[in-house]
């Protein structure tokens, strides 16, 4: 299969985004934020055991989901995600109620049947590999899907994401090594969302490198650090990086600086952190200033989603828990 090439790649990257796209990004950012706030509320009301998610990463994660080539199999993009990416899943087309079901660990939880934590998605229909609690293991796995895609041909790529603290794990180094082997460089977009924290440990006490993206240089991997809190920058830079990986079939390391608006997880209280940049607030100010949306429109949108999530939460509350006998299901793959 021939490799498609994008014409005028760089000018595309810097082109302003269409109004329709800005509205779409905003809609998904609001939807994601409201979902995460509902999940936190459910946790605090005792309707779940643990919350972890990505309020503060919506600008980046929504853009990523919108730009992915969505489908199943090596012709489409693989996502080896971490547990702060509900925005990416919603942008791919998932319904928020799935996340609520996972929080309530009901039998209807579409991602794990009540077995796994919040934000631990698995969606084979979209090539979303199962999210795992041990951080950074996805960096060791992702080169495998990229290898199959390279051999398969076409323009499907592998995307792997993780946090800054986890880059201290050897799996991150494995990913850099395996993605840039001279024998077989891989079509893989290696993403680090840098919120500058590892639970309660500040990055500045643990990481000597100036930028995490600098680590790509040693491997000859094209790399960049961007402001992941700016929706327009996140979208355009992701688009450029993905175009490079898609056409050149080589790795790209993208570091996105993002915020962590509710702390690490329910383990650290899941309360709003006031001194972080709020990507949604910033984006809404910009949209209002540019005349894309009015404050009233944006407030109405948030209210609609708030009501929608509340209704979904009420529905989920009455759904059955998994049957204890279901523990024996799917230990091994069955004939389908």
């Amino acid at each position, binding site marked *: 299969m021939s490799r498609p090439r994008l014409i005028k790649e760089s000018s595309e990257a810097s082109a302003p985004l269409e109004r329709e796209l800005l509205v779409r990004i905003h809609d998904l950012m609001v939807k994601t934020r409201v979902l995460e706030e509902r999940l936190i509320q459910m946790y605090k009301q005792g309707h779940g055991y643990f919350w972890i998610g990505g309020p503060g990463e919506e600008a980046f994660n929504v853009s990523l989901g919108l730009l992915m080539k969505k489908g199943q199999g090596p012709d489409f993009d693989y996502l080896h995600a971490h547990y702060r990416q509900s925005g990416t899943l919603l942008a791919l087309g998932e319904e928020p109620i799935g996340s609520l079901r996972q929080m309530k660990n009901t039998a209807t939880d579409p991602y794990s049947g009540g077995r796994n934590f919040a934000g631990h998605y698995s969606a084979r229909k979209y090539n979303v590999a199962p999210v795992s609690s041990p951080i950074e293991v996805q960096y060791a796995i992702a080169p*495998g899907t990229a290898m199959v895609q390279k051999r398969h041909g076409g323009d499907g790529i592998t995307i792997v994401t993780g946090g800054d603290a986890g880059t201290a794990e050897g799996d991150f180094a494995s990913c850099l090594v395996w993605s840039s082997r001279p024998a077989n460089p891989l079509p893989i977009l290696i993403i680090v969302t840098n919120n500058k924290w590892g639970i309660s440990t500040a990055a500045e006490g643990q990481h000597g490198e100036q930028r995490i993206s600098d680590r790509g240089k040693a491997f000859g991997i094209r790399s960049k650090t961007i402001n992941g809190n700016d929706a327009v920058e996140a979208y355009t830079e992701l688009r450029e990086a993905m175009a490079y990986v898609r056409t050149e079939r080589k790795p790209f390391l993208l570091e996105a600086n993002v915020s962590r608006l509710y702390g690490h997880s329910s383990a650290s209280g899941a309360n709003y952190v006031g001194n972080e940049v709020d990507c949604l607030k910033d984006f809404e100010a910009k949209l209002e200033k540019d005349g894309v949306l009015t404050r009233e429109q944006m407030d109405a949108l948030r209210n609609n989603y708030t009501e929608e999530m509340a209704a979904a939460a009420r529905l989920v509350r009455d759904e059955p828990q998994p049957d204890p006998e279901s523990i024996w299901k*799917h230990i091994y793959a069955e004939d389908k």
Partner: protein
Amino acid sequence: MANMAQAIRMALHYAEEHLGVTDIFGEDVGAPLGGVFTCTQGLKTTWNSPLDERGIIGAAMGIAMAGGRPVAEIQFCDYVYNTIDLLKLAGNTSWSTFGDWNLPMVVRTPVGSGIRGSIYHSHSFDATMTHIAGWKVVMPSTPLDAYGLLITACQEKNPVMFLEPKALLRVKGEERIPGEPDDERALSKLIDAPLGDRSQWKPQWPAGLEAYAVPFGKGKIVREGTQLTVVSYGRTLPLCAKAAETLAADGISAEVIDLRSLWPYDWELIKASVQKTGRVLFVNEDTEVTNFGEHLVRRTVEELFYSLLAPPRLLAGKFLPGIGLADALEMASVPQLGDITTAIRSLAGEQP
């Protein structure tokens, strides 16, 4: 007759040609070496990976996710320990995603003592591996079983850990692999890479290799007996068979079972034998504390207590941090023929 390394190589060749194996890889698995034990010489999908066990297991998982069928090698099982969480993840992927994903992948790794491998090339992995749910775990003791179990492994939809008893890799089999030439020297000439420059060498694979498959979960009785049962696998299995043969001259009739599959395992075969003999000895060489044989002892006690004429016993490796290089140290650390013979004799003589 082929040795186990040759049998593994032929099975992998068959799997590349007929079962969709796409990647056979690991440290030194590809040209020019073809594996430190020569198990992957001349195969067409082999490649050399970075010296990174976590990368190897991770890549196998990714390849399996994307529709490939990988057979990864960890050069010695002693080095697979730093991948334990990835093995756990591979084992729980189907379960944790409620069947959304499955991983058709095989990991091969040499295990156990017998080559004077000292502390880091002599360890066993059966106890650790059978602790990780979601995998299928096998260990052959003959070339034919190695061939047949590997054919099955390469048809599996689930992760399979294929443990290779390194002491037996060079032992010629007594049974012919379907399709291999009668003359072992002819076979060697066809598929063993020459020493020195191999850049121009290509193997000539026996044309008649067949999809001979040993099903998982089926052990076999390698020697019938009436007075006691010995259950083993891997390196210690032929020693058990030999001990039983020797003791037959003394009037001790031992039934010897080769378990072959550790998970799932053939409980029905063990059960029927123990109900017949009333005595059972489990033999392997992994360290004795929290040993897979202990699970078998527990199950024997719980389910077959009233059939027993003597307490079930376990003969395993000593609970040591390693195996020393000196011949005497290795021999003293893991069961040898004499230990097995003594254990069988003792069990046979025990009266209720």
